[in-house]
């Protein structure tokens, strides 16, 4: 269970203080929780605060009852928090197998490495020895990023807009990966997304707007509110934009 207690985050811009997140309190213990909301509402900041990439200006983050607010990225990762980047990072010379092994935290055999790649819909034999560099497409990188999260197998995983920057065809596959993950998950998945199909498999939906929790609750309660609202228009615009890219 992850808990945010009165979390605030602000940045200094020139001499002016800009508030990104304002007094956010949340409990995330369900299997699959989706966070949505308009662009610039602070969703990615929230994900980075959970992973430890950013530290709150005030407030607390508790993970299974322990205060992790001041812990580093490494320490949080070792306690069981995983984070999938919105823009997966490329590495010259590090192969897909190296990266999956590092994620698993041990040397893994070919079979095990292949099983994680197959889970995300990649033909393992074609990818295992490839470098995680510019030769891979955005969709391929996204799936490898997800494979690293599967290999970690932690109790809590955060995905920051997994649909961002990939083409429609890859998106359809990605949804299938998350649908499968939902059936298998042990612990909680927190996913930041604008996609209705992702929101559709969430147990709980949290809407963030203007740096605050605008609404939260079971999918059945929240989804009808955001469909047809201004938040949803932003959401459908975003979908069209994503679908228009290829």
């Amino acid at each position: 269970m992850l808990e945010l207690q009165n979390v605030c985050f602000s940045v200094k811009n020139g001499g002016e203080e800009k508030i990104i997140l304002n007094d956010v309190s949340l409990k995330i213990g369900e299997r699959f929780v989706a966070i949505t909301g308009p662009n610039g509402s602070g969703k990615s900041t929230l994900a980075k605060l959970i992973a430890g990439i950013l530290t709150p200006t005030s407030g607390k983050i508790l993970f299974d009852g322990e205060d992790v607010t001041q812990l580093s990225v490494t320490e949080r990762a070792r306690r069981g928090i995983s984070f999938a980047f919105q823009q997966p990072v490329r590495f010259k010379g590090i192969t897909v197998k190296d990266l999956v092994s590092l994620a698993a935290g041990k040397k893994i055999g070919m079979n095990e490495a292949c099983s994680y790649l197959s889970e995300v819909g990649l033909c393992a034999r074609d990818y295992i020895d490839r470098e995680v560099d510019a030769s891979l497409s955005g969709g391929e990188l996204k799936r490898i990023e997800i494979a690293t999260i599967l290999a970690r197998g932690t109790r809590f995983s955060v995905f920051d807009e997994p649909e961002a920057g990939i083409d429609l065809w890859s998106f359809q596959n990605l949804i299938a990966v998350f649908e499968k993950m939902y059936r298998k998950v042990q612990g909680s998945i927190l996913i930041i997304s604008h996609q209705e199909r992702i929101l559709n498999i969430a147990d709980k939906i949290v809407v963030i707007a203007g740096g605050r929790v605008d609404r939260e609750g079971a999918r059945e309660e929240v989804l009808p509110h955001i469909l047809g609202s201004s938040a949803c228009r932003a959401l459908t615009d975003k979908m069209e934009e994503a679908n228009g890219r290829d």
Partner: protein
Amino acid sequence: MDEIEKMLLLQVADLHKIPEGAYNIRKDGAGEGRRSTANIEIAERSDGNPGIDIIVKPGTKRESVHIPVVITRSGLQDTVYNDFYIGEDADVLIIAGCGIHNCGKQQSEHSGVHTFHIGRNARVRYVEKHYGEGDGNGENVMNPTTQILMEEGAQMEMETTQIKGIDSTERVTRAELKAGATLVIREKIYTHGKQFAKTDFSVDLNGDGSSADVVSRSVAAQTSYQEFISRINGNGRCKGHTECDAIIMDAARVTAVPELSANNVDAELIHEAAIGKIAGEQLLKLMTLGLSEQEAEEQIIKGFLS
């Protein structure tokens, strides 16, 4: 051979024991063992200089030559001249390399001057590793010079690696390519402490259809300094590409100096150079997998130089 010598051989030539095929092992400035085969002759030089001639018969296929050098005596200054004559249509693997173990206080130095005469349509894969170690304060110095003369349609792939323990190195490589010849060079260098490494490549693409691809990946740590000079002269209808990709850490410095000369309207030459520290997001990604910052750094460098 004692354990230190065996270890050096393992580092520079991946050799656990006496190799298969032709070989020449040089230890502390003198011959330690040699074998010629039916197709590959290794002979003392006729001009009186220290070193050997390696003569590969035309048409020799899938054979290898090992010519490692091991230096364990502190203060030894060793210069050696090796000439390779690769016959037409031959296809061979040549593994050279030098390992220095300097436990004294004096400077140990090895300068290998290698000249390759590569016949028409012959193919050579040349692997060279340099490694140094020691528990004294003596410096390990290596200054390899490689000259490559390629006939029509010849191909050469050169892998040169210097990962550890060489305090100072000036590496000079010169190549001349006739029509249809292809040269690929992959260099990897890691320097630390106060080490200095200078690489100086110069390739003349003289013949039509010749090509060269020279790529250097390097990591400079602590207060070390590296200089990378690469010069390609396109004198015919040719393609040339040179790339320097360097990671700098701590207070290290790297200079990259490209020089491309197109002396023919059909010459296509490209240079790329990128120098910078490890990207913060690469460190962060590995830290989200549970690695400490230092472990992440090590993995990134290991991959980069692999």
